[in-house]
């Protein structure tokens, strides 16, 4: 009973926060709503006995990703009024697609898959089960291949970001340390007969 109440609380708040992200006029408010949304999602993870994922959600998404978002938003000057031009123009088509999708999602949710079988009878894990150990074990054994590929994906993201943003400016003056160290007295000094 209490669990249902908390589920409704977290789920409802995350939906409201999600709508806030899209509808907020101020970009910074959107970011704050997104943070709130992540907190609620973390709450849902905790309710599913996935405490590791819940903590990671807060540490990584709220702690790192959203801080980055905040910086980006502060550095870019985004004119939301201009972005909203043509909003009404696209509303009929976009709204129709949204309504159709909504009906489909409700149909899928109420089709009985999620209310029968293993999902309906799922119980809470016993207290001694440690999420972190379990994930660690399976991640480095069964999911090893996926883990390794994910590492390469991150490397590529890093290389890509550097390649697209690093510019060696031709007009900038660089310090040549080796040349400075190797310089000799004769290079710099000249005897002049006065």
């Amino acid at each position, binding site marked *: 009973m209490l669990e249902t109440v908390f589920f409704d609380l977290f789920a409802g708040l995350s939906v409201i926060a999600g709508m806030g992200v899209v509808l907020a006029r101020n970009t910074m408010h959107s970011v704050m709503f997104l943070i709130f949304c992540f907190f609620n999602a973390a709450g849902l993870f905790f309710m599913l006995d996935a405490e590791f994922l819940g903590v990671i959600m807060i540490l990584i998404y709220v702690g790192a990703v959203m801080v980055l978002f905040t910086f980006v938003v502060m550095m870019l000057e985004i004119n939301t009024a201009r972005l909203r031009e043509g909003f009404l123009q696209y509303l009929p088509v976009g709204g129709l697609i949204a309504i159709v999708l909504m009906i*489909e*999602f409700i*149909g*899928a*949710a109420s*089709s*009985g*898959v*999620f209310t*029968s079988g*293993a*999902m309906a009878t799922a119980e809470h894990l016993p207290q001694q089960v*440690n999420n972190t*150990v379990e994930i660690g*074990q399976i991640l480095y*054994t*069964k*999911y*090893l*291949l*996926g883990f390794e*590929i*994910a590492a*390469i*994906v991150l*490397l*590529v*993201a890093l*290389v*890509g970001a*550097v*390649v*697209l943003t*690093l*510019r*060696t400016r031709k007009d900038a003056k660089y310090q040549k340390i080796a040349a400075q160290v190797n310089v000799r007295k004769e290079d710099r000094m000249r005897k002049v007969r006065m």
Partner: protein
Amino acid sequence: MANVTFPFPFPEHLSSLMPEMFVAVIAMALLLLDLFIPREKKCITAYIAIATASVAALLCVSVNPAEPLVGFYGFFVLDQFAVFAKVLICLATALAMVLSVQYMKDLENVGEYYVLMLFAMLGMMLMSSANNFIVMYLGLELMALCIYVLVGYQRDILRSNEAALKYFILGALSSCMLLYGVTFLYGVTGSFDFVTIGKGLADAGSSSHTAVMLGLVFIIAGLAFKVSMAPFHMWTPDAYEGAPTPVTAFMSVAPKVAGFVIFIRILDQAMPALQHEYTMILSAIAVLTMAVGNLAAIAQRNIKRMLAYSTVGHVGFVMLGLIAANDDGYAGILVYMSIYLFMTMGAFAIIIIMQREGIQGELLDDFSGLSKARPGYALAMGLMLFSLAGIPFLGGFWAKYAVFIAAVEAGHVYLVLYALLFSAVGAFYYIRLVKYIYFDDARVQFNFSESRLMQLTVVLMAIAVVALGVYPDPLMDLCKSAVAAMI
């Protein structure tokens, strides 16, 4: 905590992953090595990368198994089908890198360009061997991330940036759709494994129908974005036009091979129970794709945009193989992709050669009078275009023939008639370019200076297109046996 046990043994068939491991190690080593190569000698990086791709193709052949091997706890499958696809992907990557050497040499950070190409190739190789939605998605993202960067590599050119941004945003959206679809299948079957999902869907019954259908639709939509099927093709012309031309060549072949291979695996293994439904969805998409691709190509004045729409049109034809949903259809897709590789790489090689001092060489008009100035290139371009149009006794004819016959045998006669109609429409814009080349007067000087490597590439591609047109049987047999040995 004390009694932590590892219930899983060492991964089986580690050696079947050898080509991928080789590419990953060399690519990372090259990333470091490139730091020590001076700017004016960056072609060394290019040659190492080309050699890596070629050796990877040979390694793929060397691990070719007689029986399908499933390793890494069912994540990775190696069968002749995957090997064939990987060889095509390695070949396409190597050729695209060969086309890049001259084109990209003045660019900043050119060393990483080749490394990213190798990583994209790695992603596609993993996709071809995926037996699981996790590996499939990670391979797809690895490929896509590299290509987003490659498209935007000419940072000082506005249209390159625009292309990269459009491709990135639409690509990210399509990945979300794909993942969302996968979660529905996971919700119903409790597995990411293709075969387990296939079994689960067959047992699931009608109560889960809506959820399964949503999963199917989202997965098809997500993959359709990647292989640019209409109406998910919107990014294609802009990305193709804005990307550096060698990258355009790369994008129009390699990701399409990987995309169709994974399409075949998912439909054939994970969704046999939904064959009726997916055939209907794919037929509708194919009808639209063929029309959009071939009709929109007529209106284009820029050859890269024209070839982009032509790719969309070709994807529509290839889809007939998916719709046929039998071994002949899948073999037809492999035949189509192999021949398409040679035609496209040849055509793009000539477009790159056409780029010269002050002239982009990308407008159709720029080709006017090529036959009088450079009859050799005019002949090669003519061959490529006729082949793309599907004129008999050139490679492209057999490509179309293979998928059309398979679709007819599977009972999709009307769809094939429709495809033939749009094949004729497609012939119009290819042959219009031949008219520019042979019957119009030159507007500009053809004073380009191409490297020996480019000349050799054009000659090899032309020979391949003619040879496959005259004698396609070995390729067809190879594709048939590769599909027959599919898991």
